[in-house]
């Protein structure tokens, strides 16, 4: 069975308020990032996938089953965005209890809870009360209860919130590993550059309840032909470089700084060929080339604007 999560024409209304409109999205194995501003509909999409909400129209399918069915939930791991727990429980007991509800025996659940908490860096604190945990530790407990059952489909709603940089890196590595093992992972976040680092199956950009785009960041950027690409070129001779670049047809605009030149181009492939030629013509003319807008943040900004 291939781990898949599919939305077909899914809309969701809360009374008169439309939270999602006609969303079509298909996620397969690997990590798919879900990007959007607050209120864009990310959490609603996640809750629909987890079977916590029913779509007003359209269909959601989780490994071929409706998410509200127990068969679908048995392959689902869900890390919600809320920071709520049974505060009096220890981290290990909470995760073990969740795994018990997932159908594990009491002994297996306890063993697996210890294992997954250890993997997430909570090995020493797992016996303490959750009420005494820091925000980052609570976040990891939430992740552990979702990862513990080894799900086929994993939904992570803002999983990096509250984590320090080291913990973010560790969690990112864990999630990336899970995605590479064939699990369908959908991760929502507003920390775009971090999402870009581990969303190997592409990103879905959502804005005001509508899915704007879905695919690899580079592909999405390449499709925006009408938007000029911006490049920054570091140079030991910026004025000379600027005058040469201004003469090129592929360069739409040039601006000069103290040690760099910024250009805009609509023909990015042709521009790279020309820049290679110019850079090779004189030593120190181009020492570094940095695309300024082919990252997720820029793509998202273009699409939203």
């Amino acid at each position, binding site marked *: 069975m291939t781990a898949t999560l599919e939305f077909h024409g899914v809309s969701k209304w*809360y009374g008169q*308020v439309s939270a999602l409109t006609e969303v079509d999205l298909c996620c397969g194995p690997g990590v798919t990032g879900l990007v959007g501003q607050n209120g864009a509909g990310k959490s609603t999409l996640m809750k629909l996938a987890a079977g*916590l909400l029913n779509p007003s129209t359209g269909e959601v399918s989780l490994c071929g089953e409706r998410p509200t069915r127990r068969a679908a939930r048995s392959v689902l791991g869900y890390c919600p965005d809320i920071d709520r727990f*049974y505060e009096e429980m220890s981290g290990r007991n909470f995760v073990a209890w969740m795994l*018990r509800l997932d159908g594990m025996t009491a002994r297996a659940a306890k063993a697996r809870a210890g294992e997954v908490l250890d993997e997430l860096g909570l090995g020493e604190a797992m016996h303490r009360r959750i009420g005494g945990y820091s925000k980052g530790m609570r976040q990891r407990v939430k992740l552990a209860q979702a990862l513990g059952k080894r799900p086929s489909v994993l939904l992570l709603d803002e999983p990096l919130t509250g984590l320090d940089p080291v913990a973010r890196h560790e969690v990112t590595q864990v999630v990336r590993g899970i995605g590479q093992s064939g699990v369908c992972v959908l991760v929502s976040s507003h920390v775009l550059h971090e999402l870009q680092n581990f969303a190997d199956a592409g990103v879905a950009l959502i804005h005001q309840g509508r899915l704007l785009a879905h695919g690899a960041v580079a592909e999405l950027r390449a499709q925006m032909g009408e938007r000029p690409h911006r490049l920054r070129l570091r140079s030991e001779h910026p004025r000379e470089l600027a005058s040469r670049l201004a003469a090129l047809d592929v360069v739409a605009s040039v601006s000069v700084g103290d040690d760099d030149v910024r250009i805009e181009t609509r023909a990015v492939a042709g521009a790279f060929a020309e820049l290679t030629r110019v850079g090779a013509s004189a030593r120190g003319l181009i020492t570094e080339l940095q695309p300024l807008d082919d990252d997720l943040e820029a793509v998202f900004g273009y699409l939203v604007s």
Partner: protein
Amino acid sequence: MNPALTTLVLARQTVVRLLKSRMLWFLLLGVLGATAVFYFASRRLAHSMRGDTAFGTIAVAVYMQFVLPFGALYFGVNGLQGDIEDRTSVYLFSRPLSRTAMLLGKWLAAALVATVLVVFGLVLLHAALAARGTWRLNIGPPVSMLASFAHGTALAALAYAGLGVWFGAWLRRPLIFGIVFLSGWEGVIANAAQQASARALTVSDSLRRLLWHAHAPRDQYAEILLGPLRIEPDPEALDPSLAMLRFAAITVALGAWIYGRREYDARTAE
């Protein structure tokens, strides 16, 4: 997890949760306070009534008409709504569990906690009344009354807790509607309706009939069981135990139907 095990696990978790409820401790404090009051009042009561009459009257007035219905209803509502309100229900709702089994677990837990609380209060009351004074005609409160009160308490707790889980699954302000039901519907219909079929729609009528048949009450105890209109129990009416179980089954079924279709946090958009 199979539904039976889900029910047991959720019942256990709900009991643990309810044991931390302030309302339980408030009611327990009330029970202890009432016991102390009746301990000191028992000598005076003993001059004017028999022990069985005193015990029956107080047990019905304090426990059957107040602590039991309010406690069981509250625990039913709280058991069901507690994790919805604090949003920890997200962990349960996203797991492969039967919603009906979850609701059954919460219902049983609420009924169990209410039953234990009330029976504990009745035992204390009995001990307080039995320990003091020489009762009229030398008839103290018999221990056998405790058994029928415990029987009635357990059945009524199932019914009231059923009402609690139904209202908890259905209404936004279940406690307010519950209190309106208890003080309005139960109070008016059980006391004022002439037709037995109408009174059968209440729990308290069945509970009173059960106690009436079990104790053959007299004096004040008989008066409180008959109500202000002094309507004697209809011998043709459905067996009171079955009537309470029927009430519980209907309310729990309605609650399960609603709970099974309930969306998580559906009222809050992002």
